[in-house]
């Protein structure tokens, strides 16, 4: 069954979109990532113009993270104080990212920047996480406790910088500087790559700040909800590329998928959680690396730079 998308200007199979968004929603609910980094490339693969894909996915991510935020909030697994600082830093980072985005577009190398960033970010983050997860699993198998790298009472140097704040909910007593810097970097990357940044935020909060996984996921979803709501409005105002029909379809699949994902997360132990997230991020990075290293079957590409879209 096909439906015509008014902004993307092409018909699309309803079942395909529901299936895709359902699967991505499941992953989103499971790991507390927005899922934009998976959904956007998939939609572009279905011939949806990239601008429409990025803008519409922002709306979908806002909706599906709402479900997650409510779920984690009810379970009291959401640190609003930490979330607010992340959102404020994120806004600053987004502004810087948009400036960078536009200057790279003027230079004509935007596509290369995006692909290279995907490859480096995803393979490095995914690879590090995979290494760590595997090491932890080996320890468990060897009968030793999967202990954290740092013992209680000690903390990495960046947590001891000035302006320390208490985040009782996250069991964190830490300087605001590294948290705000992290948020700025994520906002910057998010604006350039058109992703929410949950896939960076979640591992960063787990590894650098040792915040309990359940709270990391809830807080990350809160930050994503705020940024993506703003991003949807900005896209609608500046380039009119939000496709409301596509958004509804993506939301229907996404919110249902996220529900099952959120439930599955409860039955997943920390080690498997880390291993699966690492594999997911690494595979996306490798997928983009293939595009970069394998000789293309069609060296040419056509873009329409004027009119309609």
């Amino acid at each position, binding site marked *: 069954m096909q439906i015509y998308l008014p902004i993307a200007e092409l018909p699309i199979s309803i079942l395909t979109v529901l299936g895709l968004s359902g699967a991505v929603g499941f992953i989103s609910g499971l790991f507390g990532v927005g899922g934009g980094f998976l959904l956007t490339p998939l939609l572009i693969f279905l011939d949806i113009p990239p601008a429409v894909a990025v803008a519409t996915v922002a709306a*979908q991510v806002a909706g599906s993270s*709402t479900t997650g935020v409510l779920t984690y909030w009810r379970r009291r697994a959401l640190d609003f104080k930490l979330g607010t600082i992340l959102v404020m830093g994120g806004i600053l980072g987004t502004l810087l990212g948009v400036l960078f985005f536009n200057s790279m577009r003027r230079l004509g190398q935007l596509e290369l920047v995006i692909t290279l960033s995907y490859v480096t970010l995803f393979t490095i983050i995914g690879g590090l996480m995979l290494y760590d997860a595997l090491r932890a699993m080996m320890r468990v198998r060897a009968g030793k406790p999967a202990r954290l790298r740092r013992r209680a009472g000690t903390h990495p140097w960046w947590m001891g910088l000035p302006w320390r704040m208490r985040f009782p909910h996250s069991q964190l007593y830490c300087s605001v500087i590294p948290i705000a810097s992290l948020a700025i970097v994520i906002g910057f990357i998010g604006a350039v790559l058109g992703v929410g940044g949950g896939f960076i935020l979640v591992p960063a909060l787990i590894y650098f700040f040792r915040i309990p996984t359940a709270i990391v996921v809830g807080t990350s979803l809160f930050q994503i909800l705020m940024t993506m709501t703003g991003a949807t*409005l900005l896209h609608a105002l500046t380039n009119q590329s939000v496709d409301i029909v596509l958004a509804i379809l993506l*939301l229907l699949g996404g919110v249902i998928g996220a529900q099952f994902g959120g439930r599955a997360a409860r039955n997943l132990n920390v080690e498997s959680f880390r291993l699966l997230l690492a594999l997911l991020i690494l595979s996306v990075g490798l997928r983009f690396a293939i595009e*970069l290293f394998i000789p293309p079957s*069609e060296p040419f590409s*056509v873009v329409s*730079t004027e009119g309609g879209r």
Partner: protein
Amino acid sequence: MSRALALVAMLVVTLCAAAPLRAETLIAAMSSHQIQITSNYTGSQLTVFGVVERDGRTVARGDPYDIVVTVRGPRRMLLVREKERLGPIWINRTQRRFPDSSLFLTVASNRPLSEIISPETAQRERIGLEHAQRPRDAALDLDVTTARFQEGLIRILADKGLYTEEDRGVTFLSSTVFSAPINVPATAPTGPYEIDIVLYAGGVPLARQTTHFEVVKSGMEQRLAAGAHDLPLVYGLVTVLMALLLGWLASVVFRRD
């Protein structure tokens, strides 16, 4: 089909009433001048009907008539990029602009173009995908690189079904009456389309006729697209609220505790 017959009948009547002429004249009509896009739109088909009009003084010709129909879609600036190797990676390095290019192009004829006209005529008259792709005022000769980029452009758009060449796309119903079905795929852009019909005999152009149609969004599709452009803030707020509402609804529906 009855509609098609009625059109042909109408054309024949017009033809009989026409003033005396020395050479052939081409009269064409279309089954529709507008394609409306609704939510279940999956592409459309139009038919061009035409009559070759001749009178008693028209010279007898040894060669049969040939018809070439060229359909050009809305014009855009097309940017073609080529991936090249830089060290171990493949990146877009060179690019060529094709200003004023159609995003949709169909060339239909009653037999292969190479049998109808010479390559020189094809180039001069802008017949065939390769020549019709260029805007009318553009230079006839392309440098080697641009020609390679144009080949890539045509190949990509042909793969998407936006550029087509139909060797048997025109059917002669009698020796002077013809029809040509035009397929407009769902991915074809909205906007004005122009149809150029040329009559040939023995490789010489005898008559030419142009007509047009347009592809427009209608109903819900049109209102949504107009809303996105005319009231962007309202459109954005509605989308966001709807997203948040659906998210909230899902958490209520699926709530177990």
